[in-house]
């Protein structure tokens, strides 16, 4: 009897497929539609930080360099106020196998899949995570399938994603290239069911624990170089795993006062599932299309409970425009002799807006870089934008309009960013919690969980739910 492979039928089998493909029984941690034992779920992965570091060193991951960007810091100090202009450092995660921090996330999933006897791994991702999973699978002797959203109905592929298809195939993965649509998840479920492979989801505890070594390394390297903890760490924010893992690592290393600053590229007004808008974006990740919805309701992902919970750790959230990121990217190349890709450049842009307000003896760390190349490079993205009818010019970056105009600043002091209202984000998280379970049914456990999950006290939750 062949199974019903329709969209609705396969989606209905989600929990069964997830359980078989992850080897985790999430119900063991869940206490209500809202609350679950997050810390136990994270520690019961069974990997200490020493284990994680050892596993990662086996597959060419971790211990990446930390560079000080002296020329960029000098350029900021030229216009920052007296005594202002913090030292900017960058963690060169492009040095990991496959060229991004995502290798940290894939490394533990690959180790886990091999240990549990799976024949292969699957990930649904149009980003660097695909190449990371393919590279780690290759090193662990596992087969690999990557499911990507690549091209619009004109069959035009986003150049950055086309480069990722190439990289995944280069590492020996079977790459399923899909047109625009949220049915990517349906494709993942179908392929997991057909193959019985391991689901290397970005959002399992393995995926997040793998990033914690990044936070730990940053603290150790800054202490060794400067004799102090970093004052702020800036993290490009999309699905939340990057921020969650790094923040947990910083805390594990004792840097509990370090300010955790998220940064996303503002793509407001563009619809993430629109065929027409798909190629009018110049950034495929680290943007508000993912950053805001994933922060305000993490459990919208493939796994029943998401290990990536950004609001649990986030102190500040900045938006930057596409034009500002392209400008800072070019400066990184021209002033610092480093050519890197968009994800790290997004947080580097926010580091400039922070450094100008902070004191000269303070330290801001940009927590990742990623590789660049054909398709991903900012020159290609800008020429691609022009080919899709978007205006590209120099001027005041306030003139940026996602999908219509990319305005690249003329001077570094025009790079300002836009700080978001954290309480507004927290309130929309609570609104989503109410949809999951009416307030009248919330127990003390639910209130305590919510307070921890959005980094406030229970009184704040009770006060803001009443409004």
């Amino acid at each position, binding site marked *: 009897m062949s199974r019903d492979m329709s969209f609705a039928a396969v989606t209905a089998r989600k929990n069964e497929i997830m359980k078989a493909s992850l080897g985790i029984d999430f119900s063991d941690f869940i206490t209500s539609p809202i609350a679950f034992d997050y810390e136990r779920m994270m520690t019961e992965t069974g990997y200490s930080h020493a284990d994680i570091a050892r596993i990662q060193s086996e597959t060419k991951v971790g211990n990446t360099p930390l560079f000080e960007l002296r020329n960029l810091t000098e*350029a900021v100090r030229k216009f920052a106020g007296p005594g202002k202009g913090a030292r900017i450092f960058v963690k060169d995660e492009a040095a990991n196998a496959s060229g991004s921090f995502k290798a940290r996330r894939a490394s533990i999933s690959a180790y886990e899949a091999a240990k549990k006897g799976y024949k292969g791994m699957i990930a649904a991702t149009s980003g660097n995570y695909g190449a990371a999973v393919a590279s780690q699978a290759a090193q662990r002797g596992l087969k690999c399938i990557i499911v990507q959203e690549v091209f619009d109905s004109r069959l035009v592929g986003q150049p950055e994603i086309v480069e990722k298809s*190439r990289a995944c195939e280069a590492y020996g993965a079977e790459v399923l290239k899909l047109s625009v649509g949220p*049915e990517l998840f*349906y494709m993942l479920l179908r392929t997991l069911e057909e193959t019985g492979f391991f689901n290397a989801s970005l959002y399992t505890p393995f995926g997040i624990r793998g990033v914690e070594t990044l936070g730990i390394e940053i603290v150790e390297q800054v202490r060794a170089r400067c004799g102090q903890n970093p004052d702020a760490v800036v993290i490009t924010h999309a699905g939340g795993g990057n921020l969650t893992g790094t923040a947990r690592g910083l805390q594990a290393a004792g840097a509990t006062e370090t300010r955790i600053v998220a940064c996303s590229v503002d793509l407001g007004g563009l619809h993430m599932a629109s065929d027409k808008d798909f190629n009018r974006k110049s950034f495929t990740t680290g943007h508000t299309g993912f950053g805001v919805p994933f922060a305000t309701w993490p459990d919208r992902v493939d796994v029943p409970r998401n290990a990536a919970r950004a609001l649990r750790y986030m102190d500040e959230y900045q938006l930057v425009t596409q034009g500002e990121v392209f400008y800072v990217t070019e400066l990184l190349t021209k*002033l610092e002799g480093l050519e890197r890709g968009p994800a790290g450049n997004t947080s580097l842009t926010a580091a400039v807006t922070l450094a100008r307000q902070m004191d000269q003896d303070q330290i801001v760390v940009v927590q990742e870089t990623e590789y660049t190349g054909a*398709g991903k490079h900012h020159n290609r993205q*800008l*020429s691609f934008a022009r080919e899709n009818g978007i205006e590209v*010019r120099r001027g005041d970056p306030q003139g940026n309009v996602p999908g219509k105009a990319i305005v690249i600043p003329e001077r570094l002091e025009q790079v300002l960013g836009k700080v978001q209202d954290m309480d507004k984000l927290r309130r929309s998280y609570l609104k989503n919690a109410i949809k999951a379970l009416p307030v009248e049914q919330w127990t003390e456990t639910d209130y305590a969980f919510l307070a921890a999950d959005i980094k406030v006290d229970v009184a704040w939750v009770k006060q803001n739910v009443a409004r």
Partner: protein
Amino acid sequence: MSKIAQGTWVEIEQVVLKPEERAPTLPEDTKQTPYLLHVSGFLQAAAELGQEATIRTIIGRELSGTLITVLPSYNHSFGTTVPELLTIGTEVEP
């Protein structure tokens, strides 16, 4: 039309979902389009472009669809010059 030889590395296209079979919550423009899959592999039997064909993917899975490309390759680039970038960070404009 000449037949593509068995064993050639090719790309096929599958209509995974027809427009009417797609996810209910779609924006208008996406709703009218079929949900398409492109995947590459070795042709299992000689076939013509535009014909139904079966491939064996690089990890050994068999998939079928319409034969659309022979020896698919990548030609994404660094793009045409964007003059607005050239002077950033140079002495012309510190």
